[in-house]
């Protein structure tokens, strides 16, 4: 068996099998990725605007006067007011959340999941036209939903602000893909089922159940208000824990061993981690409502489940770390690995932070503060989004058969994102703790509401700076993606890496135990 420069066996039957798989996925996956990056840009803009409004409340509250007067002349009464209303924080902020959660994160999750499943099932994608149609419907739904929220038709239910007609469209689009997903798994090449496949199947199975139940009980046939809160946060937390997390972990479990060419450390840890996550994560929802109008048993159950999350998180962290051990030098070279390992480490951090936030004592301080926002960005950005970035950096060259045009843009992307999210989480965590402590101790005369706002102001300003950094990073990414999709990437000459790969470095044979 001969080996190439990279030390991999050049068995072209295997490679050709992968080529066929990749070719079948090409259109739907590339479209999902491209549209998700588009929504990432839009969502980042909305996020930045919302962030600025929190320390500068007069930012972008109405159309410029000269334009408003001009518009007033020929438009129906109230048009200017309608447009001004679209700019208010209370609408921009949910627009940001829904665009990044459904337009960026869910769409990139689907694109990456499709490709991973196809690769791991070692069978070409069946019915790609169906998946493409689902993607188009998904994007139309996001666009309509965003306009609806800005137009004042938000449902005002966190994580489910899209109006009912949009939810139906998303659900249908989703159903098309999940049915395909199960079908793909049923038609897989026989053999060992890999851990990533469990995670993806689980996510595809759980999400419609979550989405359908929540929409039914909160929007289509709303139950009494007294019981809505727990359904709301059962959904909101599980969208993260049973949808985004499994897909993120599936990607990490695939790309880390794949890029370094080593097997995952322990099958037993993978299995245990998976079932522990499935068992405990789903009970966490009530920890969003500690101190709230819910019976004690429900809150305590959710807190205990949140504490138990230490177990799958620790197990997964050890599994990933032991897999990487001895191979950390690869982070010098591979963009995919850098983003994915950053993401996997952030997963551990975010989950440990989350478990700590579930203790009633700490929660009483951080609930309702910016600390929670810092935590949610640590999870959804530092963990999930960074893993998606890494996945996209790996997948796109294989589907376009070109390499990334610019390593500089990748560097800007990585460092912008890394520093951006670290800064954001830091300032929101510190600012949140200060805010919470002052809020809970009004008996100290200096802790007036006025002072709370004055003191948290610089933290919120720093958050806007971090948002600007992320904006730059995302623009660099989108630019690189546009270039490679337009065919500007080089076709030969090896992968686009951070540093030059020395032949001697990589070809040190680290025999895998295949």
């Amino acid at each position, binding site marked *: 068996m001969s080996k190439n420069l990279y030390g991999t066996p050049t068995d072209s*039957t295997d490679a050709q099998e*992968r080529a066929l798989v990749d070719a079948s996925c090409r259109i739907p996956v590339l479209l999902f990725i491209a549209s998700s990056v588009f929504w990432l840009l839009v969502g980042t803009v909305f996020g930045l605007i919302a962030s600025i409004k929190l320390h500068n409340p007069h930012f972008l509250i109405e159309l410029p006067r000269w334009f408003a007067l001009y518009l007033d002349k020929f438009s129906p009464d109230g048009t200017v007011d309608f447009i001004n209303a679209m700019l208010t924080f209370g609408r921009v902020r949910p627009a940001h959340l829904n665009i990044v959660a459904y337009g960026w994160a869910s769409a990139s999750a689907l694109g990456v999941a499709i490709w991973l499943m196809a690769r791991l099932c070692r069978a070409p994608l069946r019915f790609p036209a169906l998946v493409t149609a689902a993607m188009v419907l998904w994007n139309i739904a996001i666009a309509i939903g965003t306009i609806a929220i800005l137009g004042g038709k938000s449902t005002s239910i966190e994580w489910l602000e899209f109006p009912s007609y949009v939810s139906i469209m998303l659900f249908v689009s989703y159903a098309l893909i999940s049915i395909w997903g199960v079908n793909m798994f049923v038609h897989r090449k026989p053999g060992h089922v890999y851990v990533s496949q469990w995670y993806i199947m689980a996510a595809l199975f759980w999400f419609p159940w979550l989405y359908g139940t929540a929409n039914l009980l909160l929007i289509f046939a709303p139950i009494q208000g007294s019981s809505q809160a727990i359904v709301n946060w059962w959904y909101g937390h599980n969208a993260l824990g049973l949808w985004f997390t499994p897909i993120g972990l599936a990607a990490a479990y695939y790309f880390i061993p794949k890029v370094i060419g080593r097997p995952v450390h322990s099958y*037993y*840890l993978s299995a245990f981690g998976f079932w522990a996550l499935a068992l405990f994560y789903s009970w966490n929802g009530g920890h969003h409502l500690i101190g709230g109008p819910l019976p*004690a*048993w429900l809150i*305590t159950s959710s807190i205990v489940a949140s504490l*138990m999350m230490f177990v799958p998180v620790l197990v997964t962290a050890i599994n990933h770390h032991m897999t990487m051990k001895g191979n950390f030098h690869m982070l010098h070279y591979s963009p995919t690995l850098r983003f994915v390992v950053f993401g996997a480490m952030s997963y551990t951090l975010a989950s440990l932070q989350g478990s700590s936030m579930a203790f009633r004592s700490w929660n009483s301080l951080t609930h309702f503060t910016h600390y929670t926002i810092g935590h949610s960005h640590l999870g959804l950005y530092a963990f999930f989004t960074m893993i998606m970035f890494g996945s996209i950096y790996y997948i796109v060259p294989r589907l376009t*058969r070109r390499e990334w045009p610019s390593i500089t843009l990748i560097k800007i992307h990585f460092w912008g994102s890394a520093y951006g999210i670290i800064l954001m989480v830091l300032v929101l965590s510190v600012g949140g703790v200060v805010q919470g402590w002052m809020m809970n101790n009004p008996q100290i005369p200096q802790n007036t509401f006025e002072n709370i706002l004055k003191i948290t102001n610089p933290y919120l300003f720093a958050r806007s700076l971090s948002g600007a950094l992320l904006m730059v990073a995302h623009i660099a990414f989108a630019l690189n993606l546009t270039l490679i999709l337009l065919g500007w990437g080089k076709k030969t000459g090896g992968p686009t890496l951070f540093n030059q790969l020395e032949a001697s470095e990589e070809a040190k044979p680290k025999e*895998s135990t295949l």
Partner: protein
Amino acid sequence: MSTHDEHNPAPQHSEDHDPQLLGIDYSEQNNVSQIHETLLREKPEPSDGMEPVPILLIAIIAFVFSIGGFYGGRYFSSTDPMVYDENPGSSIVAAAKAGGPTTEVALDPIADLVKLGKRQYSNNCASCHQPTGLGLAGQYPPLAGSEWVVEAERPLIAILVHGLQGSVDVKGQTYNGAMPAWGKSMSDRQIAAVLTYIRQEWGNTAGPISPDQIKAIRTELEGRAKEWSEAELKALPKDPVPGGLTAAAPVAAKKS
């Protein structure tokens, strides 16, 4: 998992795997092996290692389970949906008996009233009359140095209990607003507290007002539903309101 049966230099082209049918366009490239370069350099698909679970990890997991179990046992008070307190032994009846947090022992009844009144003021009054007590020009009258605050007690208490409507002169300026009635939403103690507070704050040096005085006014003016007008307030009797604090003994310690 990759199949490493035989090294096969040439790709097999059976009907099912005809690249043309599947859309791989070889016309872009002459060299077939170039197509696959990206794929050829890939490491094999990931596989599972079979390392055993470390004993230490099992111990840590058992420890976490025990922490979770302990926390759950400690704070699982009841499956009753009407029980909101996580501390066991706290039933609805017990909660009603406990009645909430204790009030502080009133060693200095006036300081106690001022403290409560300050909180009351910032929660209910500061939004209009401002934390500075200066009010808003043209909108809300000032309380600092206001004759309505520091002089007669009866009209002041009446304003708090029933509200004030129409124009009123304060420190030479006319204000034409509406002061809401707080009699229904604030207790005697709360009204007395906030009045005591404003009467000694911002340079004001008038005496305290006791909860008993509020009670007396409520009885005296029972049946009044409308807000007061300036004229009506000026027409109120000028004798002192009974139940004042200065003469009375310190308020007994209240414990709930």
